[in-house]
C-alpha cells in the first residue's frame, strides 16, 4: 500500500469499527511490527535523501494521526458500548443441583448450635447389646419400664459363647454408657443417630427414626444449668421466640425425669391440629443423670452430676418444616425431598 492508499483506507476502517478487538486488528494491520505503515517507515532508510525528506514527515505525521484516531476510537468504544437487545426474561440456564434430605439439613443446624455451646459430636452403633440399651441405663430385665421401648431383637445365630442378646437400639441413650466408660468428666457431648422401635406405622409413628442424645457431666452441674442449655438450644433452633415447658416424666436413667414441651410454633399457642389444641408440643425426654447410671460406668455419683436429654429429630423436622407424616422421611420419595 502506498501512503495515499493507507490514508484513504485506515480512517474509514477506524470509523466503521465497532469493537475493541477489530480496532486492535486495524492497529496491527497498519502500525504493527509488519504493518503497512511500519513497512514504509522501515523502508525510508533505503530511499534517496530527497525522497526521504519528502515522504518521511508525511509518514510520521500519518502515524500520529492514525494513533490519535485509534485512541479516540478506543475511548469512544469504551464509553459508548452498545449490545444488541436481549430478552433477559428468558429462563436461566438449568444447572443441575441435588437436594439434601431435610433431615440432614436439620441435623447440621442442630450440630452447629451444640458445637457453639461446646458439645462434641460422638457416634455409636445401631446394633446394641441388651446391657447397653437397658441394664446399664438402670432398666434391668423385667423392669416394668422396659415396655416403654418396644424392641426389635436380633436373631442370635452367632458362635458367641455367652449368649449376649443383640437388639436394634431403641434410643440413642446407650452412647451415654459407651462414652462414660471410656472418658473422664467433665465433658459435654451430643450424639445423633438412627433408632428403631417395634411399632405399628402411622402418620406419627415409624419403626425407624432419628434421635439426638445430649449429655453433660461435671462436678457442679445443677438443674438450673440443665434448664439453661435446653432453653438456649430450643430458642436458637426455632430462631423465634418460643416458650419451653418442663413437665414431670419418668425415665429410669434420669432423676428427676422431665418431659420438654415447646410452645406450638404454628399457632403460637392459640390451638391448632398440630398441638391438638393444647398449645404445647412434646419434644424431648430429659433429666438429671441417675446415680445408678454413674455407678454402672464406674463413676462416683457423689463426685459427678450431669444431665441428659434425647430429642426426636423427625418430630422437630415435622414441626419446623410443617411435614404432616413421619413416614415421608424414609419414603425416599423425591417429590418430598426436592422441596428442601
Amino acid at each position, binding site marked *: 500500500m502506498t501512503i495515499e492508499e493507507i490514508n484513504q483506507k485506515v480512517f474509514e476502517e477506524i470509523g466503521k469499527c465497532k469493537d475493541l478487538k477489530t480496532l486492535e486488528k486495524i492497529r496491527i494491520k497498519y502500525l504493527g511490527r509488519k504493518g503497512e505503515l511500519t513497512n514504509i517507515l522501515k523502508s525510508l532508510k533505503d530511499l534517496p535523501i530527497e525522497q526521504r525528506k519528502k515522504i518521511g514527515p508525511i509518514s510520521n505525521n500519518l502515524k500520529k494521526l492514525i494513533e490519535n484516531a485509534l485512541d479516540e476510537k478506543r475511548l469512544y468504544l469504551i464509553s459508548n458500548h452498545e449490545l444488541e437487545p436481549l430478552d433477559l426474561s428468558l429462563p436461566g440456564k438449568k444447572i443441575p443441583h*441435588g437436594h439434601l434430605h431435610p433431615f440432614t439439613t436439620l441435623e447440621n443446624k442442630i450440630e452447629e448450635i451444640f458445637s457453639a*455451646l461446646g458439645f462434641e459430636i460422638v457416634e455409636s452403633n445401631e446394633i446394641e447389646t441388651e446391657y447397653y440399651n437397658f441394664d446399664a441405663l438402670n432398666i434391668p430385665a423385667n423392669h416394668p419400664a422396659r415396655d416403654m421401648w418396644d424392641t426389635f431383637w436380633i436373631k442370635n445365630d452367632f458362635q458367641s459363647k455367652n449368649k449376649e442378646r443383640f437388639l436394634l437400639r431403641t434410643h440413642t441413650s446407650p452412647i451415654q454408657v459407651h462414652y462414660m466408660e471410656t472418658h473422664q468428666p467433665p465433658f459435654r457431648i451430643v450424639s445423633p443417630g438412627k433408632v428403631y422401635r417395634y411399632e405399628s406405622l402411622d402418620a406419627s409413628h415409624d419403626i425407624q427414626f432419628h434421635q439426638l442424645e445430649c449429655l453433660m457431666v461435671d462436678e457442679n452441674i445443677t438443674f438450673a444449668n440443665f434448664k439453661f442449655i435446653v432453653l438456649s438450644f430450643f430458642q436458637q433452633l426455632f430462631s423465634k421466640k418460643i416458650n419451653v415447658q418442663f413437665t414431670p416424666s419418668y425415665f429410669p436413667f434420669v432423676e428427676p425425669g422431665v418431659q420438654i414441651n415447646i410452645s406450638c410454633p404454628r399457632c403460637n399457642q392459640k390451638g391448632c391440629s398440630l398441638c391438638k389444641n393444647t398449645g404445647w408440643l412434646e419434644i424431648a425426654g430429659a433429666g438429671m443423670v441417675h446415680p445408678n447410671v454413674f455407678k454402672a460406668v464406674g463413676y462416683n455419683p457423689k463426685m459427678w452430676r450431669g444431665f441428659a436429654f434425647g430429642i426426636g429429630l423427625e418430630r422437630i423436622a415435622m414441626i419446623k418444616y410443617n411435614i404432616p407424616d413421619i413416614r415421608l422421611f424414609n419414603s425416599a420419595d423425591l417429590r418430598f425431598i426436592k422441596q428442601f
Partner: protein
Amino acid sequence: MKFSYNWLKEYLPKLPAVQKLAENLTLKSFEVEKIEKNNSDIVMDINLPPNRFSDSSGHLGLAKEISAILDTPLKMPLFHLKENGKLKASNFLQIKVQNKNDCLRYSSRVIFDVKVKESPDWLKKRLASCGLQSINNIVDATNYVMLLTGQPLHAFDYDKLMGEKIKTLIVRRGLSKEKIVTLDDKEIELNDNILVIADLKNPLAIAGIKGGKIAEIDSNTKRIVLESANFDHALIRRASQITKIVTDASLRFERILSPSLTIDALNYVAALIQKLTNGKILNGIIDIFPTKISKKVLGFNFEQFYQFAGFFIDKKFIEKTFKRLGFKIVKKTNNDLFLEIPPQRIDIERFEDLSEEILRLYDYNKAPAIAPRSLILPAPINEKALFRNKVKSVLIGLGIDEIYAYSFVSKKDLDNFEIPEKNVIALENPISNDFAYLQPTLLINLIKAGGSNLRFYDSVRIFEISKTFQKAPFRPYEEWRLAIVLSSKDEQSDPLFFELKGVIEQLTEGLNCTDITFVDANTNWLAKNRAAKIIKDGEEIGYIGQINPRLSYLYNDDIPMVVAELDIEKLYQLSKEEYEFTPLPKYPAVIRDISILVNRDIRMSDILNIIYQSDPKIIFDVDLFDIYEGKNLPENKKSLSFHLIFQAEDHTLTNDEVGKAIEKIIINLKNKFNAEIR
C-alpha cells in the same frame, strides 16, 4: 389409665374444674392425655409412669397426689367393717405359699351368706366411667376397690374349693400338662413359668392375671374367699406374655406394687360386700407375709439440695411439701430432715427422688435457667461426621439428591440379589416379612427407591449414606457406606455408566483422594462386562456397574440403571486431609493433537499407558477429546483423538524435542496396537 372426676371429688371437696385440674396434674404430676364426658361424669385418661402405680393407680391414691399438689384437704372414705364375732376365718381356710419370692404377700378374708345379684346403679356408674363392665355385685365390688386402691382383688366361691371342713388355697407354679379354663372360657396350658392359685387338686386362677372357671362366683354362690395379694412383678409379666392375657390386674401387677396395699384393700372390699349383700365377715384376716417390709427413713440435706437445684427454695416450703406428700418428718436439724416415706411410695429411694418431689411441686417452670459455671472448651471436631457431610455437599453439587430409606430388607429381596440368607442378620421379631433382615448393602433399597421414583420422574439421581449390617462369626457389625443410583428413561446405560464414573472421579477428587482406578469385575447382581471394582492404593473401596437385566426387570421396568457402592470409612482413611503445593511450571507447555485408528477392543487405559511411557520426562498430560466409531470407518475400528501436552521442568521445549517424542509415541502405538495415524 382412666379416672373419674366425680369419684375423685368424693375425696376432694374443693376439687377445681376438670380443665384446671388436668393442667395442674400435667405440670406437677402426670400427663393428662384426654378428657372425655361420660354420661354425667368426666373421665381423665392419665399417663401414669410405671413407678407410680403403687401409690397412684387408685382413685384414693390419685386424690392424695392431687391434695398434695393443690394443697387442698383430703376427705378419706369411710367404711364400716363388722366381723361376725363367732366364726374364725382360719378355721375354714388355710393358705400355703410355696415360694415366698413368687408371692410376697397373700391376705384373705372369708365371707358367708352373700347374695349374688346385680350391682346398684352408683356402683355400675363408677365402673363404667373407668371402662369396666358390671358382672355382679361381688365381682364389681372387687373391681371397684381395685379402682379405689390400686390393689387388684379376686373372689373365689368357697364351696367350689376342694376339701371338707377346712379348705386350702395354694400359691404355686403351674405344672406341665396342667390346664385351666379361664372365666372367659379359654383353655390355657400351664407351665413352670406361670404362677397359679390352686386348691388341693385344681388350679383355680392364673395368679395376678385371670380367674378360672372352677371357683367362679355365680348366682348360687353363698360363701366367698377374697384374695388381696402381692405377686412378683417379673413373674406376672412373663406369665402375661406367655398366656397372651392382659388384664387390668396383670397391668398393675407387672408394675411394682407395694405389699402394704393388701390389707386396706381387703378391708374396703369386705366392708363393701357386707354393705351390698349383708354377708357375714368371718373373724380375722389370713395374712401370709413372710418378709415384712421395714420402715423407710431417708435423710434430706438442704445444702445438698441447693447444690443439686442450683437455686434457693425456702426451707419452709420444702418442709411443708414433704408433709403434704405424707412424708413424716421423724427428725429435724438445722441442715437435715429425716423423712419416713409411706410404704406405697416405692419410687422414693434416695436423695435425688426427694429432690424431684420438691422441684416438681415447686414447679420446674419456676426454676431459673443459669449458665453452667464450667469453662466451655472448644469441642473436638468429629472428623468422620464432617467427612460424610463433605461427601454429601459434593454429591448434591453434582445434581444428585439425598434420600433416606429403611434399614430392612425382605427374604425376597435377598433371593433376587442372590445373597444367601445365612450371611445376613435376621430379626427375631420382625414387624412384617418386608422388614425381616438388616440390609447387607444399601443398594437393595436404593435400587427400589430409584424404581419407585421413576414413576414420577424421567430421570433419577439419588444417593444415601447409611449403615449396612454384616455378620461376623461372633457378633454382628455395621459399617457406613455410600451408595449412588443413576437411572434415566432418556439415556442409554453406557453414557449413564460414564456419568456415574465421572461422579465418582469428581467426588474422589473433591475429597482429595486422587489416583483411583477402575478394574473390571464380576459380581452376581451387576451386568456382565458392565461392572468394575473401584481401587485406591491397591485397596478395593467399592464397585460400580449397571444392574443386571434380571434386577432391572424386577425393580426397574427395564429402564437403564447404574449403581455404585463405596465403603465410606475406607474412603475417609485414604483421603488426604492436607493438600500439597506443586510449583507452577516455569516453562511453557506445547500442545499437539494426534488422531489414531485402532481396533475397537483395545482399552483406553492401555493406550494411555503406552503414550505416557513413550517419553515420561516431557509428556505432561494426555487428554482424550474425541472417540468415533461407525460411518466412514472400517468395521471394528475406532478413531481416537488426543491433545498431547508436553512440558519440561527445566527448559523450554524445542520443536525438535516435541517432534521426537511424538515420533516415539507413534512408533509405540503402531507396534503395540497396530494403530494407524490419521
